[in-house]
C-alpha cells in the first residue's frame, strides 16, 4: 500500500484523519499515486493538480525520504521506500501568505 500524507485542509476536505493508504497498480509515480488518490477521493480533484493542465499547484510540494521530488517528472518512479510503503509521500503546502 502507498502511504500519502495530506495537508490539514485537504484532510478536512476529504474527511480523513492521518495518513491515506492507497492501492496503486502499475508503476509507482507521482501521477499514478495522485490519480489513485483522486479516484478514491474525488473532492480532491483540482486541489493538488490543476484540472486543465494537470500541473502541480504552485504552492504545493511533494516530499519523500527527505527529498523534494516536486520538480521530478510526474512519470518518474517514486523512491523504493514509497513504493513498498516504508515511507509516505508527503504533500506539503507552502509556508506562505496570510
Amino acid at each position, binding site marked *: 500500500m502507498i502511504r500519502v500524507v495530506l*495537508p490539514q*485542509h*485537504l484532510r478536512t*476536505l476529504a474527511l480523513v484523519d492521518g495518513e491515506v493508504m492507497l492501492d496503486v497498480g502499475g508503476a509507482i509515480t507521482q501521477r499514478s499515486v495522485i490519480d489513485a488518490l483522486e479516484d478514491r477521493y474525488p*473532492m480532491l*480533484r*483540482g*486541489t*493538488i493538480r*490543476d*484540472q*486543465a493542465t494537470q500541473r502541480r*499547484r504552485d*504552492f*504545493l510540494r511533494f516530499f519523500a525520504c527527505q527529498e523534494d521530488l516536486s520538480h521530478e517528472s510526474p512519470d518518474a518512479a517514486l523512491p523504493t521506500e514509497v513504493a513498498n510503503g516504508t515511507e509516505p509521500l508527503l504533500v506539503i*503546502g*507552502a509556508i*506562505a*501568505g*496570510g
Partner: protein
Amino acid sequence: MSKARVLVGTRKGAFVLTSDGKRKKWKVSGPHFAGWEIYHVKGSPVNPDRLYASQSSGWFGQVIQRSDDGGETWAPVDNKFAYHGVPGTHQWYDGTAHPWEFKRVWHLEPSLTDAETVYAGIEDAALFHSTDGGASWDELSGLREHGSGPRWQPGAGGMCLHTILIDPTNPERMFIAISAAGAFRTDDGGKSWKPINQGLRSQYIPDPTADVGHCVHRIALHPSRPNTLFMQKHWDVMRTDDAGDSWREVSGNLPTDFGFVIDVHAHEPETIYVVPIKSDSEHYPLDGKLRVYRSRSGGEEWEALTKGLPQENCFVNVLRDAMAVDSLDECGIYFGTTGGQVYASADAGDSWEPIVRDLPAVLSVEVQTLS
C-alpha cells in the same frame, strides 16, 4: 413568523447568521470551510435550503460546496471549469495578449425557477452553468467568444465576472458584468451576448466611451422593473431604463462616486443604496466616516445614512458583492466590511447596527428571507 438568514463569505471562511423577523438578535454559525477564501455563498430562491458556496485557496485552488439543509451540512460538488475549445487571449496588464486561465469562482447565481440550475461567474472572465445542482459545469461560451474578448483586461482584482442578474420576467434574458470589460446582456438564454456599455465614460481607457473596457463594479435591478439597472462603476453611479441600451450618470450629490456595492430596496424600485469610497487608490470611506447613501428618486439626489455607523477613524472597504437586501415588510439592508463587520438595518437604512463585528475581511453578503 418570517426569519432572515445572512450568508457571509470572508477571507478565512463562511458564516451563517440567523435571526427572527425583528432582526435584533443574531445567532452566528461558522467558520465553515475555515481557512479558505469564500468569495460567495447564495441560496436558491426556489428551495431556500439549497445553498451554493465558492471555496478557494491560493494553495488548493477551487472547490464548490453545496448544502441541502440551509448551511447545517455541506458537501463538495464538481469543481472543473473547463473553457470550451481553445480559450484564446485577453489583454494583460501591460497590454500584451495573455491566455485565458481559470483562477476562481467569484459569484454563484442560482436560477429563479429551478433549484438544480446555478450560474457561476469566474476569473478569467467567463460564465458557466450547472443544471444538476453543481455535479457538472458547462461554459456558456458565447459570452467569452464575443468578438471583443481579446480586448478585455483585468482590473486590479483580476479579470472577474462578478455579477449575474436574471430577468424574473424573461428567463432568456440575463445581465452580467466583468471587471474590466463592462456589462453584457443575453436575450437568448446565454447563447449570444452584446455589450451594453453605451453612455459609460471611463477616463482610464484610451477611448473613454469604447464599447468594452469599462471597470463595472456591480449592477443591480428590482424584480418589478427588470429594464431598469443601476450600476456602480469604478467611478460613477449609472442608470439605464432600457435594459442597458443606454446609460446615464446619476451620481448627483454623492460626495464621491467611487465605490463597489449598489443595491435596490426590496419594495421600492426607485430607492437605491451605495457606499461611497474615497478614491480608486484610497479604498476607504471619505473622512473616516462610514456612510451609506440612499436615493429615493432612483439616483441624482442622495442622503447620507449614518445612525449607528462609525463616524470617525473608519478606514474599511465594502467590496462589490458585500451588500444585500431582505424582503421582510420593512426592508432590511446588510453590508460587510474588510474590517470584518456586518452591519444591518431593519428600517431600510435609517439606523444600523453591527450584527457581527470581528470576522475576517468580508468578501460577500447575501440574505435569505425565510417563512
